[in-house]
Structure formats: structure tokens, C-alpha cells
């Protein structure tokens, strides 16, 4: 059962992400990315990380994809961008080698035998509950920092996309703000 | 005067900083006063110096980076005493010689010179390897500026080459110094860069060899030894007079001084091992550069290459490793400083008047400028090592000392008295003798009061120390003997010990 699910998901993600990485069309790429992310959440459910799966769906498929869609509209994505590839073989070689290396490395027995889980998954406790428990004790600080990070991202997004950026004070010599005179050294 | 050494080092620095405030037109007077005070201080040092004491005197020790064993540690002995005095003297006379109408931006010049003086004095007085290195490197900066700002057409190239070449070498030297400190740390458990402590360090012969080479990189480029000498003609060729004077008189001595202060006492075995190598290089250097000097068209280049050649003699003396050779080479450092300094001044005098240094532009100057020719002649004779001038004493002692090491080598190195006179006399003949060939030169003025003030003291010293070198040779001898005794004591291999001993005494007394 698990195997079937795994292979279905695996094959579909590989194909979908492959399209994302290779397609010439932005729309296709984005759509397959979104679909791939849904498939990824499938893995999470498969692995018992229900909370993560939900978050994946909400954040990625919901928020991130929405953002990308807006951006695509902004950039007029209907026109195909011609990508010039100087050396496509090299890229595939690098990617292929990378994959090969992963196969080799991960074929090794990575999991330790006698490892004790630090934050064990307790039977009978819902995944979301357990995650919450850990998140708000041990990982409270990272969680808060992540909040700051999101704040930063928000501010960044707002001011970068804002109107104020359209006229650069750096390059234009506008009438100097009289207040700035106080900083002017007498030359 | 407990802190005389610190005063000697930092007085020019302080004066240099204050010099920024001095009015442009008074800069030269300021420079002269400061340099004169510095010179008097150095004389005072000599006066209060205990000539019978072979060790370090007036020592000062202030830990700076105690954890890493770096400290401000200065002291003076017979070897460094006179080089310091000479540095002060040459700076003073160099400043006196400066022509206010020819030097743009005199204030900057004075300030750079005063900084330079600090670094020079600092190098010779430091007893801490890092402080030594500090002054060593720092001396490049004002010199870079002096060459680059007041030099000839390709001054920037020459200045940068001078800087980078020396800098590269001394960084290798720095690695050597750090290694020594580490080895000391291994042995004694503490970090120190104190040279006097390092003298106690017992190093294996193999290590000594490599460390010797590391330090050699720094010193040899500075000396400059063949084949690392090519920065020198460029630097001299482009430098203003004052730059050449200081460069030749003092900066080159840093290299040979380094050998005496570091290489010999720290690595006696390696030094003994390296004798053939160094001496071969030196002999090549003596002959080869003297011949190159002969081929020069430019008066200043002749003297520049002659400097290299003479530095070869000094190197020979250092590695003769007996009291005669070593003492002689230290004396020769002084005499070469005085004489080549004076010669560069003299070339500067004529350059200021005519704007050229090419010998074929001159001819018959002796008729037009008799006093100039006389002073030049005296310096020339000192340069070729005429007895009763300062040049003879050192050269004689060096060759004498070297004879014990290698008779054949002495004959080869001794050719310096022949080929030295060849290029010097040729220079003199081309420029001073014969009819006046260049009409432009017909109205040249002879030396004026300013130039005489700068040159006559040098003439006096040339004669005085040629006739009566004892007051200088005495302290040098005392310290050199101690150095040699220490070397012999420290040498690990019996061969080295034996070599050092056997180089010391005349056969009759063995």
C-alpha cells in the first residue's frame, strides 16, 4: 500500500518538478510546481507528518503560488522568455552527477541503529498536537525569529514594490532638503 | 637619561606630527632644527655610552602584547650605536642640502624625512623581532613617498618596485621570525620575540638552515644582494637626491645589520654552512655590479651600482666571521653610508644645476667648479678605498678578514679595488676632466654655502675616521668579539665551532 503510494507520488513529483525545471512556458512551470507541491504534501501524510502536510498545502499551494501568480501577471508572463543556454550539456552533466552522488550517498545506511529520539513521536498523540508541543517549547525561539523573518519579508516586499522606489534619491539631484544642511560640512 | 633610546626613536615622530602645523616656508628650518637636535641626542648617546661594555646598554622593556610575547624592547651596543649616529647625521645633512626653490611641497618632504628617521633609528635600536619588523616595514612608506613624489620620470614604477620587492622579501622573513618564536615557545613554554632571549635558543642544524633562508629573503633583498638587486638602480635612478642619500646611506644597511643582528647569532651553524654560498654570491655581486657600473652612462647609476658592489664587500666581511672582517664590515657600513651619501649629494648638486645626470653632458667640470671637483675627488678616493680615508679602513679589514676564509675569494673580491677605481675614475674623467664640451655648462656656479655646509662635515668625517678610526672601531670591536664568542658558544656542530674558532686568530697565536 505504502509502496504504491510512494511510487505514484514519487513518479508524479519527479515528472512535475521536471517540467518545472525544464519547461519553456512559465505557466506550465508554475502549474506543475504547484501540482508537485501537492504531491509533496502527500509524502508528508504518508510519513505521518499530517501537520506539515497541511502547512505545505496552505503555505505553498495557497500563499506562495498566489504570490507567484500575481507576479506572473505583473511580468506579463504570456510572452515566452527565450532562454539562451550557452552550454546545456554542462548543466545536465552537473545535475546528473549531483543525482548520482545522492544515489550513492543515500544508498549507505544513514540511519543509526541505536539512536534515541529526542522528541519522540508518542503514540496516540495527534501529529498537530505533538508538533505544537515541541514548537512552543523547544522551538519557541526559532518560531519567534521566523515571525520576525516574515515581518522582514513583509516590510521588504512592501517597500520594494512601493511607489517610493520609483524615484531614486540616490541618483537624482533634487533640491536638497534644507534640514540636510546641518550635515553639510562647510567646505 | 634612562630613556634616551626612546627619545631618539620617537622624537622625530613627534616632531614629524607637529611638523604638519609648521608653516610651509619655515619647514626646512624646522626640519634642520629637529634633525640637529636628534643628531645631538645621538652624540649624547655616544658620550654616555660605555665603550668597555660589550652588551646591550640603555635597554628599555615595555610589554606590548604580553600574551604573544611582543614587547617594546630597545637597546644599543657598539654595533648599532654608530649606525644610529650616522642615520641622524645623514638625515640632518640631507635636509640641509635640500633646495627650497627646487623642492615643491617642502613641508611634506620634511615630515616624510622625519618619519623616515624614526623608522631608521627604530630598526637599529630594536631588540624585539616584531618591533624590528615594524620599523623595517614602516621605513618603506616614507621612502615610497619620497621617491614617488619628488623623483624622476618613471618614479612611480621605481617607487612601487622598491616597495613591493622589499615587502615581499620581508614577509617571508616574517614567517621565519614567527617560526623562531614558535620554536622558542616549544622549548621554553613562553612566547617571546625578545632577541636576547632568542639568542639562548638552541636550534637544530636543519631548522637553522631553513630559518636562515627565510630571513635571508628579507635581508638579501634589502642589502641588495645579487641577484635581488635590480630594484636599486631603479630606485636610485628615480629618487630625488635626499632619497638616494638616505637609501644608500642607511636603508641598505638595514639588510646587512639584519644579518649581523639576527642571522649570525641565531643560526651560527647554518651561517657557517652558508659561508660558501653567501660569499660566492657576494663575490659575484662585487665584480659583476662593478662591471655593470662601468657600463653606465648616467652618473647616478654608476654610484648606484657601486653601492651594490660595496654592499657585496660588506656582506663578505659579515660572513668572514672573524673580528677583523665583521668589525671591518660594520665600519664599512658607516663609511659606505658617509661616502655614498656624499656622492649622491654631489650628483644631486650637479643635477640641480643642469637637470641632467648623463656623463656625456658634462666634461671639464673641474675647470668650472673646482671646489665641487675637489670634494667629489675626495669622496671618490674614499670610495675606492684610499688609505687615510674612511673607505680604506673598512675595506682593508674586510678583505683581511676574508683572507682567512678564502684566499682565492679574497683575490677575486679584492679586484674591487681595481674595478672600483676603473669605474670611478672613468666617471671622474668623463665628467670632470677634458675640455668643457658642453657650452651650457660654462656658467655653472661652484658649490654654494648651503651645499658646502652639507658636504664639508662629510669630508671632515671621511678624513677623520680614515686617520683615526679608533673611537668608532673600539666599541664595534668590543661588541663584535662578544658576538663571535656567543656564536661559538651557541654553535651545535663541532665543525661550526671549529670554523668559528679557526677564523678568529692568526696562526701564530693558535
Amino acid at each position, binding site marked *: 500500500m505504502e509502496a504504491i503510494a510512494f511510487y505514484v507520488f514519487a513518479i508524479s513529483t519527479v515528472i512535475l518538478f521536471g517540467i518545472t525545471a525544464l519547461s519553456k512556458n512559465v505557466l506550465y512551470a508554475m502549474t506543475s510546481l504547484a501540482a508537485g507541491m501537492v504531491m509533496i504534501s502527500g509524502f508528508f501524510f504518508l510519513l505521518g507528518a499530517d501537520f506539515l502536510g497541511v502547512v505545505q498545502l496552505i503555505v505553498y499551494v495557497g500563499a506562495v503560488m498566489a504570490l507567484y501568480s500575481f507576479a506572473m501577471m505583473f511580468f506579463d508572463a504570456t510572452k515566452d522568455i527565450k532562454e539562451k543556454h550557452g552550454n546545456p550539456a554542462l548543466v545536465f552533466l552537473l545535475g546528473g552527477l549531483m543525482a548520482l552522488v545522492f544515489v550513492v550517498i543515500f544508498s549507505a545506511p544513514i540511519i543509526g541503529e541505536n539512536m534515541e529520539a529526542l522528541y519522540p*513521536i508518542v503514540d496516540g498523540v495527534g501529529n498537530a498536537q505533538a508538533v505544537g508541543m515541541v514548537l512552543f517549547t523547544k*522551538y519557541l525561539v526559532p518560531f519567534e525569529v*521566523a515571525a520576525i523573518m516574515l515581518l522582514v519579508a513583509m516590510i521588504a516586499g512592501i517597500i520594494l514594490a512601493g511607489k517610493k522606489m520609483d524615484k531614486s534619491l540616490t541618483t537624482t539631484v533634487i533640491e536638497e532638503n534644507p534640514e540636510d544642511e546641518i550635515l553639510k560640512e562647510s567646505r | 637619561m634612562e630613556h634616551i633610546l626612546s627619545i631618539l626613536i620617537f622624537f622625530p615622530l613627534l616632531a614629524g606630527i607637529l611638523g604638519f602645523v609648521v608653516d610651509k616656508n619655515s619647514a626646512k628650518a624646522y626640519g634642520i632644527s629637529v634633525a640637529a637636535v636628534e643628531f645631538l641626542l645621538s652624540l649624547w648617546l655616544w658620550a654616555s655610552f660605555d665603550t668597555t661594555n660589550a652588551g646591550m646598554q640603555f635597554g628599555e622593556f615595555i610589554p606590548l602584547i604580553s600574551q604573544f610575547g611582543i614587547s617594546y624592547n630597545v637597546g644599543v651596543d657598539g654595533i648599532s650605536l654608530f649606525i644610529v649616529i650616522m642615520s641622524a647625521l645623514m638625515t640632518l645633512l640631507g635636509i640641509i642640502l635640500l633646495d627650497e626653490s627646487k623642492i615643491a611641497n617642502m613641508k611634506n618632504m620634511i615630515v616624510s624625512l622625519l618619519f623616515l628617521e624614526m623608522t631608521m633609528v627604530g630598526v637599529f635600536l630594536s631588540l624585539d623581532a616584531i618591533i624590528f619588523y615594524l620599523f623595517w616595514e614602516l621605513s618603506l612608506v616614507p621612502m615610497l613617498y619620497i621617491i614617488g613624489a619628488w623623483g624622476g620620470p618613471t618614479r612611480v614604477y621605481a617607487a612601487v618596485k622598491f616597495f613591493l620587492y622589499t615587502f615581499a622579501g620581508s614577509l617571508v622573513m616574517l614567517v621565519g621570525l614567527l617560526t623562531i618564536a614558535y620554536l622558542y615557545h616549544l622549548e621554553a613554554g613562553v612566547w617571546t620575540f625578545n632577541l636576547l632571549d632568542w639568542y639562548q635558543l638552541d636550534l637544530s642544524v636543519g631548522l637553522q638552515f631553513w630559518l636562515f633562508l627565510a630571513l635571508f629573503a628579507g635581508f638579501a633583498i634589502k642589502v641588495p644582494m645579487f641577484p635581488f638587486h635590480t630594484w636599486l638602480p631603479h630606485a636610485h635612478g628615480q629618487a630625488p637626491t635626499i632619497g638616494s642619500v638616505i637609501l644608500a646611506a642607511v636603508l641598505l644597511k638595514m639588510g646587512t645589520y639584519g644579518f649581523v643582528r639576527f642571522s649570525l647569532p641565531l643560526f651560527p651553524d647554518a651561517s657557517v654552512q652558508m659561508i660558501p654560498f653567501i660569499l660566492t654570491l657576494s663575490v659575484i655581486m662585487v665584480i659583476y655590479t662593478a662591471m655593470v657600473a662601468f657600463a653606465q652612462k648616467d652618473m647616478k647609476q654608476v654610484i648606484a651600482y657601486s653601492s651594490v658592489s660595496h654592499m657585496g664587500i660588506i656582506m663578505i666581511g659579515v660572513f668572514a666571521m672573524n673580528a677583523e672582517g665583521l668589525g671591518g664590515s660594520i665600519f664599512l657600513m658607516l663609511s659606505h653610508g658617509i661616502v655614498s651619501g656624499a656622492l649622491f649629494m654631489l650628483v644631486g648638486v650637479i643635477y640641480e644645476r643642469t637637470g641632467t645626470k648623463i656623463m656625456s653632458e658634462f666634461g671639464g667640470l673641474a675647470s668650472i667648479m673646482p671646489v665641487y671637483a675637489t670634494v667629489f675627488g675626495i669622496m671618490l678616493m674614499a670610495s675606492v678605498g684610499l688609505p687615510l680615508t674612511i673607505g680604506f679602513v673598512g675595506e682593508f679589514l674586510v678583505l683581511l678578514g676574508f683572507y682567512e676564509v678564502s684566499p682565492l675569494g679574497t683575490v677575486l673580491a679584492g679586484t674591487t679595488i681595481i674595478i672600483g677605481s676603473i669605474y670611478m675614475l672613468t666617471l671622474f674623467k668623463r665628467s670632470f676632466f677634458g675640455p668643457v664640451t658642453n657650452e651650457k655648462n660654462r656658467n655653472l656656479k661652484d658649490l654654494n654655502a648651503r651645499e658646502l655646509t652639507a658636504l664639508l662635515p662629510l669630508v671632515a668625517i671621511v678624513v677623520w675616521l680614515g686617520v683615526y678610526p679608533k673611537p668608532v672601531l673600539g666599541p664595534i670591536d668590543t661588541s663584535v668579539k662578544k658576538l663571535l664568542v656567543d656564536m661559538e658558544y651557541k654553535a651545535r656542530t663541532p665543525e661550526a665551532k671549529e670554523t668559528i674558532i679557526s677564523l678568529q686568530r692568526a696562526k701564530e697565536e693558535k
Partner: protein
Amino acid sequence: MIGISHYLILSGILFSIGFMGVLRRKNLLMLFFATEVMLNAVNIAFAAIGNYYGDLSGQMFAFFVIAVAASEVAVGLGLLIVLYKKYGSLDLDVIATMKG
């Protein structure tokens, strides 16, 4: 039986796909897609390992990776917008004024 290795190798392959995408994409927007692929690939690995250890830390990491990815998208898109305003293009061959 699907073992840990299956998941990890899958993760590796997906990572490589993303990696390749990053290397070959000249369109900045699509390049960003590829980075998302990479991060997602890693998330599978974390979840799988966590699952096999019976440990929640992996899920935590994956959770934060998602947060980071989201933030990156926000900032990245903000940058893309200003860039697009100035250069009128998202082609990397165009946005190459600084070199040497």
C-alpha cells in the same frame, strides 16, 4: 517495503532536478521556482528521517524551511518587481551590467 533510502534517494533526485533548474534557468522567475523545488526536496528528506527516528525535529526543520521559503518568495518577488521596473526584463543575460 519502502525504506528510508527510497525517500532519501527520491529527495536527492528532486534536489538534483531543482539544482539543475537553478543552473539552467535564465528567467529569474523560473529560477525561483527551481529553488522552491530544492527546498521541497529537502523537506521530504527531513520528514522521512524524522519519521524513521520517530523524532519530531525533522518535521520542525521542514516546517521552518517552509516558512523560509515563503519569506524568500516575498522578498524575491519584491526584488523582481523593482528589477523589472528598471531593466524591463527578467532575463539574466540582460541583467549583467557589473562584471570584471
